[in-house]
């Protein structure tokens, strides 16, 4: 009744694509989060006036479509003779894109910690850094987590656009199979299911952490 030309080899090919999607996402989310925390803290600390140039730059990364950023980024590295491969270029562009969104999440998280709570910490003799480390970071993380999970899931799907730089990630792998086997619906269904399987643990991790923290809040 159901007949397909899809072989185990093709499935392995898809799995390889999924691996590439995971790798690009992992790089972007890791580097983007580190940079995002840095930018977010800077923006919060020096205030809207002095951080205006940084805010403007991050706004560019947030508003220009990712596809354009990837193409321009690739052109830039080529003109500047940086010699970056497709993976490096994709990683750098996606990281900056992620950092721009993450900075806002971090800034919002820090703002959510009441000034009076931070005052109480400082009045006990804690330094700025100790206040950040032991009071602000844990409280801001709780507030920011749902948005950060959303960002991670978004970046995982957006990472499909790196196929334009020639990387064979999950969506590109599916396209190749569709072209060869002419079974678009079936293959895209599998591709969608794999995206779901990749995202599900991340979403569940968020739910788990929220639940674990909630009785204390």
């Amino acid at each position, binding site marked *: 009744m159901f007949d397909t030309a899809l072989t185990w080899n093709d499935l392995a090919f898809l799995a390889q694509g999924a691996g590439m999607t995971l790798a690009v996402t992992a790089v972007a989310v890791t580097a983007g989060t580190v940079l995002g925390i840095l930018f977010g803290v800077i923006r919060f600390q020096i205030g809207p006036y002095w951080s205006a140039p940084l805010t403007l730059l991050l706004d560019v990364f947030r508003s220009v479509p990712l596809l354009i950023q990837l193409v321009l980024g690739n052109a830039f590295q080529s003109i500047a003779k940086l010699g970056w491969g497709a993976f490096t270029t994709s990683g750098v562009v996606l990281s900056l894109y992620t950092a721009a969104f993450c900075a806002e999440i971090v800034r919002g998280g820090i703002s959510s910690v009441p000034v009076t709570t931070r005052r109480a910490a400082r009045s006990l003799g804690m330094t700025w850094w100790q206040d950040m480390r*032991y009071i602000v970071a844990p*409280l801001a993380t709780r507030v920011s987590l749902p948005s950060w999970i959303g960002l991670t899931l978004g970046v995982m799907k957006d990472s499909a656009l790196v196929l334009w730089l020639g990387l064979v990630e999950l969506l590109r792998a599916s396209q190749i199979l569709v072209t060869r086997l002419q079974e678009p619906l079936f293959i895209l269904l599998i591709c969608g299911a794999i995206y779901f399987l990749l995202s599900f643990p991340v979403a569940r991790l968020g739910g788990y952490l929220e639940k674990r*923290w909630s009785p204390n809040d």
Partner: protein
Amino acid sequence: MIEIENVRKSFSSLEVLKGIDLTVEKGEVVTIIGGSGSGKSTLLTCINGLEPIDSGRIVIDGTDVHAKSTDLNRLRRKVGIVFQQWNAFPHLTVLENVMLAPRKVLGLSKDKAEEIAVKQLTHVGLGEKLKVYPNRMSGGQQQRMAIARALAMSPEYMLFDEVTSALDPMLVGEVLDTLKMLAEEGMTMICVTHEMTFARDVSDRVAFFHQGIMAEIGTPDQIFASPQNPETQKFLASVR
């Protein structure tokens, strides 16, 4: 000894402290009373350097609080402050709330910090609540926890900023009893308060603030029985 000399402080165009002079000796309990906006709370936050001042000097045991060379984080170890809002750290248990600063600021071992925290929490009547998160406690209990948290740093001076103002009336007593206990133990305290009975019973001296000026200061008898300044008389008549 805390010496406050001609301290002035403005928030933009509003001058909230218009030249305050006050000396508090070791072991003394001074309460500050007065209407809202009289500058009482601002003075306390200036004393431990949370707010800068515009002119004048605040000197604690010979250290000028607002001098550039002063290490405020070090100074604050000996000047504890408790606020109107108790400001519990909501992600930490009661015990962890109290242990945090002794561990990280004083660098004590976990065991030593825990020993101090348990002692202070038992002292304020929270010995049974060590593993509880602050949000599971009443405002009065949280406020007593905040007092224990400040005491765990073994401060030589304690500043109390309207610590009962945000509490349900039925919870005020337990916090005031804690303050009384501290006063009897000889802690040097400056308390900003609206609790006149407390001010009369516990203070060595009572200061009345009016519009950024210390209008009158004296023993509780002088202030409550025979206030000299017409503004003091008016204020006391209004709160009775």
